[in-house]
């Protein structure tokens, strides 16, 4: 077999049934000098345990805070592994439902295998098993190395999780695997040896990344919405969950600050020292976009949480757009720093400043942070930013890392995963939209002398190498939908918004930001888009948009964007209409099923009258506006369009102004104004709520 043929064959080594075929035809015929793995002990033998000791792939190691070199214990869309002297990158391809294997020595893609679903994150266990959260399957798939030189893996088993497993982490003692479930709002723990379930902790909405404290006593969990981080006690039997508020403030010194230079002329002062605190009038901001977490090594003891601080306006007044508008940035990037031991955020890390006027390239603001990793030796934090399509490096030891930006690198579109190959001074970044693996050189590659001597982009050295990865031949996404996705996440696109925010800023993952915005019509809670648009016209709480296209155009106007072209709007509509919906449960216990059926009967009954407006299954609203006595003081009108109730269970707070924090509060408080529940027993109310949560 020629080398070329062998290379081509490797590409065909798709796992599952094909893996065996691949091995037979020579895929991975070589086996490098890899660490030998012990055979599993009897106690560990289970359906998920290793079956092929002597594996050729070992987890990547990095310096830790205790001075030792140890394995990476956080999940990512990019997982590094060692195979002999080579470093392999396993890349989770959520669009294709595959995992790519790339040899970082040769920059060649070795293999792609089927993940069995949409892989969100991966993590390698000490024995080489690869855990993969499958976002659309409520499962964690477990793979083990086959011994192939290509880094191929074979499936061992699948663990059932709560809906939409995303984040992964491993405790420092290697004993516990933690899985966060976004739609299932839970953290589930598994025994790392036999992967049996240990416990489940209920969390607030939309958990994403997980890191475990150095002592293994608690897990920190980020949330895409909700202005908070969760801390789960891993040792206490109750596994209590504590919330760390991550709301911040914006310093607005330009408003009332008197320049100290004028003051100094008329007064004699002591030696120059911290100036009197200027009249900053810091403005409260909620936080959002908590998709990523990282744990520092130097200095240790800090959890870094990239996020975005949001100014949504005074909802007691009407504004000219969404939020305060008026030149103020509605969204500013931040990095919250949490003291790992006290669970307290550093106050400075929750303060942001609008520095757009001082930035050379404000369109590169990190308004959609999606993944993070630390460089364990430099002591820097690397964050991938979707929309602006950059990787930003921050000083991880700064009190406010977002104000200590060190470097940025442009990468291919949609960077959603990152891993740091610290020994080779490079970061490996997966760009999901561009289907490209970026290898970013972190060493001294750019500047040699004064910045004025820097070369133009095209002629300079190349700190970013891009590797286009293979794709399935039958891609479900058309070019238009791909363009729509780019536009949905576009940051700094003046056609969409004047202040740079993207559609995904308020609709992370196509859902909602749990924020109520001040608008020209009054307070408006962001609605879920994914799965809620088809057949639910008109759109907007006021029912002003007769089509999605019309509503989008109206939204751009309110965001003071200049507007998109016809084809781009069509593409955006195509993407929005086809967004991946939150997952739905497919199995449940008989008792629970009975309760939900009971709730369904209540929902569709004439007495409760829920379906009268919301339609069958809550998904067929009547398309009319109703006055349900919910008019807020700043509302322009009293009647509101009947919303679709699809996925309503995961989109608190409720009503157009977000007045009800929970589903139960909504059901009880709106009795007689919007359906009737007063006649229901507590059990019936439970059943109704349970049913509505399944919609």
């Amino acid at each position, binding site marked *: 077999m020629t080398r070329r043929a062998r290379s081509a064959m490797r590409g065909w080594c798709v796992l599952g049934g094909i893996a065996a075929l691949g091995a037979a035809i020579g895929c991975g015929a070589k086996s490098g000098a890899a660490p030998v793995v012990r055979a599993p002990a009897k106690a560990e033998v289970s359906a998920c345990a290793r079956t092929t000791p002597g594996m050729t792939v070992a987890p990547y190691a990095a310096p830790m805070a205790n001075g030792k070199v140890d394995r990476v214990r956080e999940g990512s869309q990019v997982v590094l592994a060692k195979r002999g002297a080579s470093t392999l990158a396993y890349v989770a391809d959520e669009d294709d439902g595959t995992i790519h294997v790339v040899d970082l020595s040769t920059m060649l893609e070795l293999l792609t295998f089927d993940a069995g679903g949409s892989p969100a994150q991966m993590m390698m266990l000490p024995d080489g098993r690869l855990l993969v959260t499958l976002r659309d399957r409520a499962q964690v798939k477990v793979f083990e190395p086959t011994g192939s030189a290509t880094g191929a893996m074979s499936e061992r088993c699948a663990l059932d999780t709560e809906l939409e497993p995303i984040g992964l982490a491993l405790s420092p003692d290697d004993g516990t695997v933690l899985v966060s479930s976004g739609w299932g709002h839970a953290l589930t723990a598994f025994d790392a040896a036999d992967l049996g379930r240990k416990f489940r902790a209920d969390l607030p909405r939309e958990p994403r990344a997980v890191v475990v404290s150095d002592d293994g006593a608690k897990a920190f969990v980020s949330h895409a919405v909700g202005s908070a981080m969760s801390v789960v006690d891993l040792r206490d039997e109750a596994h209590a969950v504590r919330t760390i508020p991550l709301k911040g403030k914006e310093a607005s010194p330009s408003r009332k600050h008197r320049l*100290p230079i004028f003051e100094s002329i008329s007064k004699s002062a002591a030696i120059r020292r911290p100036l009197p605190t*200027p009249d900053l009038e810091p403005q409260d901001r909620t936080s959002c976009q908590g998709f990523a977490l990282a744990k520092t090594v130097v200095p240790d003891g800090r959890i870094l949480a990239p996020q975005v601080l949001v100014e949504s306006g005074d909802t007691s007044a009407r504004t000219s757009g969404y939020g305060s508008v008026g030149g103020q940035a509605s969204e500013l990037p931040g990095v919250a720093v949490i003291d790992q031991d006290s669970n307290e955020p550093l106050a*400075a890390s929750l303060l942001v400043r609008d520095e757009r006027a001082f930035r050379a390239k404000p369109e590169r603001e990190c308004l959609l942070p999606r993944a993070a990793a630390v460089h364990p030796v430099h002591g820097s934090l690397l964050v991938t930013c979707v929309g602006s399509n950059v990787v930003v490096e921050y000083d991880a030891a700064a*009190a406010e890392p977002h104000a200590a930006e060190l470097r940025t690198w442009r990468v291919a579109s949609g960077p959603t995963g990152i891993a740091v190959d610290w020994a080779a001074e490079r970061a490996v970044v997966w760009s999901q939209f561009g289907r490209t693996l970026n290898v970013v050189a972190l060493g001294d590659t750019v500047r040699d002398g004064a910045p004025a001597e820097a070369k133009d982009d*095209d002629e300079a050295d*190349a700190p970013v190498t*891009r590797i286009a990865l*293979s794709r399935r031949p039958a891609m479900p996404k058309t070019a238009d939908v791909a363009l729509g996705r780019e536009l949905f996440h576009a940051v700094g696109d003046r056609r969409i918004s004047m202040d740079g925010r993207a559609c995904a800023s308020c609709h992370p993952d196509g859902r909602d930001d749990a924020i109520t915005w001040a608008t020209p019509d009054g307070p408006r809670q962001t609605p879920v888009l994914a799965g809620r648009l088809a057949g639910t016209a008109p759109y907007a709480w006021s029912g002003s948009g007769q089509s999605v296209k019309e509503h989008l155009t109206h939204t751009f106007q309110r965001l003071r964007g200049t507007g998109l072209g016809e084809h781009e709007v069509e593409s955006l509509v195509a993407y929005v209409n086809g967004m991946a919906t939150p997952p739905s449960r497919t199995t449940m216990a008989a008792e629970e099923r009975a309760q939900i059926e009971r709730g369904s009967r209540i929902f569709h009954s004439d007495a409760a009258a829920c379906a009268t407006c919301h339609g069958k299954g809550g998904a067929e609203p009547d398309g009319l506006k109703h006055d349900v006595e919910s008019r807020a003081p700043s509302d322009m009108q009293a009647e509101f369009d009947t919303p679709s109730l699809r996925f309503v269970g995961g989109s608190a707070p409720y009503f157009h102004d977000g007045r009800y924090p929970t589903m139960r509060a909504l059901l009880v408080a709106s009795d007689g104004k919007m359906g009737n529940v007063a006649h229901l027993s507590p059990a019936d109310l439970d059943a109704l709520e349970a049913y509505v949560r399944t919609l």
Partner: protein
Amino acid sequence: MSRHLRAATAISLLACGAAIAGESFAADGGRTALGRTTISALPVAPAAAPEAPPDLPKRIPAATSTAGLHVARPDPSFVEVTATHAPDAPAECIRLHANGFPQQRLTLAPAHEVVPLVVERLVEDGHGGASLSLETFHFDARTRGSVLAKTQTFPLKAVVAPGKGDEAVYAYRDDASVHVIWRASEALRWRDMQFPGSIGHCALTHLVLSASPNEAKSSALAVGSLMPSVKSSRTTSGSVRLSASISKTTRDPEPVLSVSVAFDAGERSTTLPSKRSAFPG
């Protein structure tokens, strides 16, 4: 992990550990420089004496002049004051009184009363050591007379040692503050982002932070668009920022000063074509 890798890691960790223990740690990544030190490792200003006494003279006779200031009158309406060049000082700035912002030259209207001026002069010994001299003058713009009222010298610690771009960051502290001095390779227009309306223009940037860690007001950021080069007609669109902050977590035995200097010089990339499709069809 190879033996070499382990050794490199151990060295790196030792270096990092030393940094937190008090020695400065500088990782020059080319266009970015990072430095950290503990607050106790900074030299302490000998006394927090006022730069200028509270009582200023009403008038200083024209005949009174002091070495250290150069006064010109390019226009009848103004006087222009600069620091007299000291041969051993790579950077000198002048500012108006205690809370002014360092400038290469200061323009004053003659209608002013007597004002205190401070000349900041950085002296580097070429071996990593440096000191900051603060000379306080009383200056009468009407007569152009001046009196040297006070001289103070503060030893400095290099937090980011002079590197490729010839920039360096030094620091010292007094009883309540940490002073961060950034010496650039040329004069920059810069802002202290605590007070964005303030604009300094000099090769020296002097940030003052509260020594209390983790306070929002304790961190500071300077951003300066590079000025047109004196030596050529070329200007640059890049900017450079100095970030300095003091933080402390439960595990830190004492507050950590973290400083970075970052140049915005753009990024580059190349693209490798896909080698093949891994899927049939």
